[in-house]
């Protein structure tokens, strides 16, 4: 039946499929669909760079315009993955440079990028339009200079949350004077000064610039100049939002009022509250506001937020307090995403009146709320139950109670029923991060109810292997599981070995998974890489029943890595077992 469709028709139908999951599904239907699909897929997403290798990519897809690659596991964000682990993008750039001369978009997340790699990108992909480096490191401003100098077609340069070695402030000057195509520039991660004159000239000659996110060193006094040059901005990130005196205020306020299309504001380091009203004229336009570096108190925050009636995304510090979140609940009826970071996470009693009540208020007042990341110091089962009943439409729920294993502060019981209520009522939940005191029971609830759960993060929770077993056997949609400091060990892991092939990856650190189990798993499951990450000396003489420090298990078609540092071992794969799938 499928053979009767001419290829052109199939290709035309496939062209309407943009999501990579749809594309992957379609390619599994039959050999001919697989072949047709691979010839016409031009956007490729690789969620784990070690699940395949560059040759596998270029052999399968021939004319790729956009590639997205992810490297290190998520817990690398919190320094749990030692430096040197891997995820270097250079081999990918070499191979893609050989085959994909028409590559237009490169998006990398948590990968190591070198200056040499950036030079190869700059010189090898003449049509490059988009370069997004998210949480990447390993490169310097020299690499950026090479990109600026050579990428004549660049529209987007986004360095979100990268660690850049800042050797020079002049790399921006490497954009030629004739270069006028820039649409998006995000340099907020840079801590050193960039040449302001180069920046100003660049902004002035970029009529299509929609996104400009400055770094902290750009002074407030210079903002109005930039905004006047680019009143068409849609997303703007300020630098340090403070100045001596108020001289700069009126020109800043006027400059903001000229930005009729502005929808997103961020930056706001070192806020002087007196300058906050300068943005009032654009508040009602804003759909996204990030005040998470603004160390200013609740009244000032509440005032500005109360003007933002169309806000959909709010990122803020716990200085907002419960009262400020009540303002959010009444003023921001379109709110979809709330993020509250802690101002002082390492102090035991910080005396900031932000409690579970703030989140409950928002869950009551903001009917469109579906994504939450909330740091706080206390939580109760009753609050969690309320939240789940108020907002059954929540799809992403990440709660971090700062003190590990904190119980319900009212009843001193575990928070099992609270989180159980979340997974039971929020039937579309795809992402969950838990904290507080949790027993195996909560995992029973999760395994039973969280059928759409895609990503789960667990820390300092559970009692026995049963906990892990409930998750692995119950969560049908689970693809990413990351666990730290939980008493989960070999039994649950080995009993659910085949589940691991249906997932992208499993991370377990400071748990009870032994060397022996890792070896056994690696031997029995050829399509899994069981990476033990362990920095102890004399690994070979540690008995097999001793737990590993960290294990990272992921499915792969490529077997061995060849770029491992000495603290990473792939277990259970003797040389005889190594093979390459074509």
């Amino acid at each position, binding site marked *: 039946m499928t053979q009767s469709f001419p290829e052109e028709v199939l290709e035309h139908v496939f062209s309407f499929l943009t999501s990579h999951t749809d594309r992957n599904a379609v390619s599994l239907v039959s050999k001919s669909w697989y072949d047709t699909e691979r010839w016409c897929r031009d956007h490729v997403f690789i969620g784990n760079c070690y699940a395949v290798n560059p040759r596998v990519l270029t052999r399968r897809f021939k004319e790729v315009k956009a590639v997205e690659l992810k490297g290190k596991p998520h817990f690398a964000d919190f320094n749990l993955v030692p*430096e040197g682990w891997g995820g270097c993008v250079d081999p990918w750039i070499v191979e893609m440079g050989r085959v994909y001369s028409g590559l237009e978009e490169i998006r990398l997340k948590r990968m190591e990028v070198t200056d040499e790699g950036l030079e190869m990108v700059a010189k090898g992909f003449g049509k490059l339009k988009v370069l997004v480096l998210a949480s990447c490191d390993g490169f310097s401003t020299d690499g950026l200079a090479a990109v600026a100098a050579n990428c004549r077609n660049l529209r987007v340069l986004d360095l979100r949350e990268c660690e850049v070695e800042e050797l020079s402030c002049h790399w921006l000057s490497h954009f030629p004077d004739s270069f006028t195509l820039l649409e998006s520039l995000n340099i907020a991660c840079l801590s050193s000064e960039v040449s302001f004159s180069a920046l100003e000239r660049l902004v002035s000659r970029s009529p299509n610039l929609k996104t400009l996110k400055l770094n902290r060193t750009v002074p407030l006094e210079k903002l109005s100049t930039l905004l006047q040059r680019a009143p068409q901005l849609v997303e703007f990130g300020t630098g340090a939002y403070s100045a001596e005196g108020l001289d700069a205020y009126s020109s800043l306020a006027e400059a903001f009022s000229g930005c009729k299309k502005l929808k997103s504001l961020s930056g706001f380091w070192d806020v002087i509250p007196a300058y906050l009203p300068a943005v009032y004229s654009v508040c009602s336009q804003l759909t996204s506001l990030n005040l998470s570096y603004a160390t200013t108190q609740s009244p000032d925050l509440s005032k500005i937020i109360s003007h933002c009636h169309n806000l959909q995304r709010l990122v803020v510090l716990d200085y907002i307090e419960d009262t400020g979140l009540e303002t959010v609940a009444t003023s921001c009826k379109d709110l979809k995403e709330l993020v509250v970071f802690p101002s002082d996470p390492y*102090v035991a009693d910080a005396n900031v009146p932000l409690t579970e009540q703030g989140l409950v208020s928002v869950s009551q007042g903001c009917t469109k709320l579906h994504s939450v990341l909330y740091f706080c110091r206390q939580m109760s089962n009753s609050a969690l139950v309320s939240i789940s009943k108020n907002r059954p439409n929540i799809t992403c729920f990440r709660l971090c109670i700062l003190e590990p294993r904190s119980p319900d502060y009212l009843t001193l019981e575990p928070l099992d029923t609270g989180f159980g209520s979340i997974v039971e009522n929020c039937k579309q939940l795809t992402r969950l991060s838990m904290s507080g005191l949790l027993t195996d029971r909560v995992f029973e609830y999760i395994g039973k109810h969280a059928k759409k759960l895609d990503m789960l993060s667990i820390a300092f929770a559970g009692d026995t292997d049963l906990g892990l077993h409930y998750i692995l056997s119950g969560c049908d949609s689970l693809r990413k599981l990351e666990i730290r400091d939980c008493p989960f060990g070999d039994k649950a892991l080995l009993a659910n070995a085949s589940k691991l092939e249906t997932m992208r990856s499993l991370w377990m650190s400071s748990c009870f998974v032994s060397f022996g189990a890792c070896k056994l798993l690696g031997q029995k499951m050829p399509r899994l890489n069981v990476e033990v990450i362990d920095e102890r000396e004399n690994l070979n003489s540690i008995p097999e029943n001793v737990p590993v420090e960290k294990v990272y298990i992921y499915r792969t078609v490529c077997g061995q890595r060849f770029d491992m540092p000495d603290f990473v071992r792939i277990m259970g794969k003797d040389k005889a077992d190594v093979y390459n799938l074509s």
Partner: protein
Amino acid sequence: MSVPLEHDYIGLSDASRSSDSSSNITSVTETQPNSVLNFKATELSLGLPGFSKNGGPTIMLGAKRGFADVNLDGSGKWALKGGSEAQLGGFEKSQTLTPDVKPAEDKKKGSGSAPPSAKAQVVGWPPIRSFRKNTMAANSSKNADVTEGNLASGGCLFVKVSMDGAPYLRKIDLKIYHNYTELSKALEKMFSCFTLGNGVKGREGLSESNLKDLLHGSECVLTYEDKDGDWMLVGDVPWEMFIDSCKRLRIMKGSEAIGLAPRSMEKCKNKI
């Protein structure tokens, strides 16, 4: 709910399903037998490390490599000890996995009388990215008095440490050290594996003969990049001022380092 007998995916079908559990972990809240997961064939003990099933201590598991010490736990107490004590102690510390519920009293908060104290830090907790942590640490040290200093406000400050010739960099948390001596000892341990050529797969491994030159000559200098982007010699300014302005560290060696007078560079002359 009864736990269903699991398919044995990896062919250990001879595992007995008896209720005898080889697990040394008990759970106060356990209501279901976990016997279904008892694979005797694997004979994997779930006891704490360093202890055999018979209850006696087993061999010492060997020292952690020096540079691992600093990663394991943020509190200063664990960071600098080498040897097996740190190995077992540090491991236990990160494995506070006794299932007993902590006494409720420990958890009660709200007594406003005691001043806020900096907590012993667990690596990577709370889950906040370094960029944010460093930014907030810089903020709080600006707002606090100099005397309160960075200790009261807690926080941590991860900076990269590079050593000329080493194949990869490391990261350390400056806040866990209290003076230059502690820092230099930790760095010495951290990078000793490179200097000893201890199983390093690097592009430029160092040999043992280099080590001697390194440590006993004036061939190694510790420098740091400050907030202004300048490279400074470590040791000139008071410790608090140093950690306030240090953005990254670099262990220089070779010709660049010769001639830079290392006044407080005792670490270069320390024995291994």
